[in-house]
C-alpha cells in the first residue's frame, strides 16, 4: 500500500539557519511527490513537486526538495529560514490520481 511518513512532529530552527523537513515514501512504480504548506485557518498551498527529471526541485518562497530514490526520501529544505516560514508542512505522494499525505510537520522558526 502507498504511504508517506514525516518522522518529526515538530522542527525548531533559528531564523537565518538552514532548515530541513523530512519525508519518506513507500509507493510502487514512479511516484509523484509534493510539498504543501498550511498556515492557521487556511487551506493548503502548493510549494513544489517532483514528477521526473532533475532530483533537486526548486519551489515557491525559496524552498527546494531533493528526491532520493535509493533512500525513498523527499526532504524539504531552505538555506535560510524566516520567522514567516513557521507553519504546518505536508508531504504527499500520488500515482493513482489520489494524494496520500504524511502526518504533517510543524515548523517553528524563532527570531
Amino acid at each position, binding site marked *: 500500500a502507498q504511504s508517506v511518513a514525516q518522522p518529526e512532529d515538530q522542527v525548531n530552527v533559528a531564523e537565518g539557519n538552514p532548515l530541513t523537513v523530512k519525508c519518506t515514501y513507500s509507493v510502487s512504480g514512479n511516484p*509523484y511527490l*509534493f510539498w*504543501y504548506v498550511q498556515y492557521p*485557518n*487556511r*487551506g*493548503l*498551498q*502548493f510549494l513544489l*513537486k517532483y*514528477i521526473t527529471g532533475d532530483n533537486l526541485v526548486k519551489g515557491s518562497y525559496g524552498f527546494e526538495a531533493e528526491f532520493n530514490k535509493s533512500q525513498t526520501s523527499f526532504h524539504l529544505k531552505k538555506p535560510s529560514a524566516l520567522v514567516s516560514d513557521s507553519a*504546518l508542512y*505536508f508531504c504527499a505522494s*500520488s*500515482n*493513482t*490520481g*489520489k*494524494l*496520500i*499525505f504524511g*502526518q*504533517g510537520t*510543524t515548523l517553528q522558526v524563532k527570531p
Partner: protein
Amino acid sequence: EADIYQTPRYLVIGTGKKITLECSQTMGHDKMYWYQQDPGMELHLIHYSYGVNSTEKGDLSSESTVSRIRTEHFPLTLESARPSHTSQYLCASTWTSGNEQFFGPGTRLTVL
C-alpha cells in the same frame, strides 16, 4: 490564490441537523476532492470525483455524501450531523494526476 471557494468558513450546529458544505472552482478542473482534517492535523481523503456524474468514496469512511452535477460544483452533505463529524473539511481540484491540487480555505465544522 487559487480560484476555489468554500462556504461557509465556519459552522456551528446542533446534533441531528442536515448540512451542506459548498465547494466551487472556476478553473475548469475535472478532478475534485474532499478531505477531512482531524485535530491531529492528518488529512484523509473522503470523496473524489473525476467528472460530472462521477463520485467515489475515498480512503476514510465517511457518513457524508457528495454530488457532481456541474463541473465547477462539488457539494458535501451530512444528513444528520453528530459530534463525531466535528472537523475541518478541505476541498481541492486539479487537471490531471501529475499536477498539484489546488485547495480551498476549508470549512471548520463544529457539531454540538
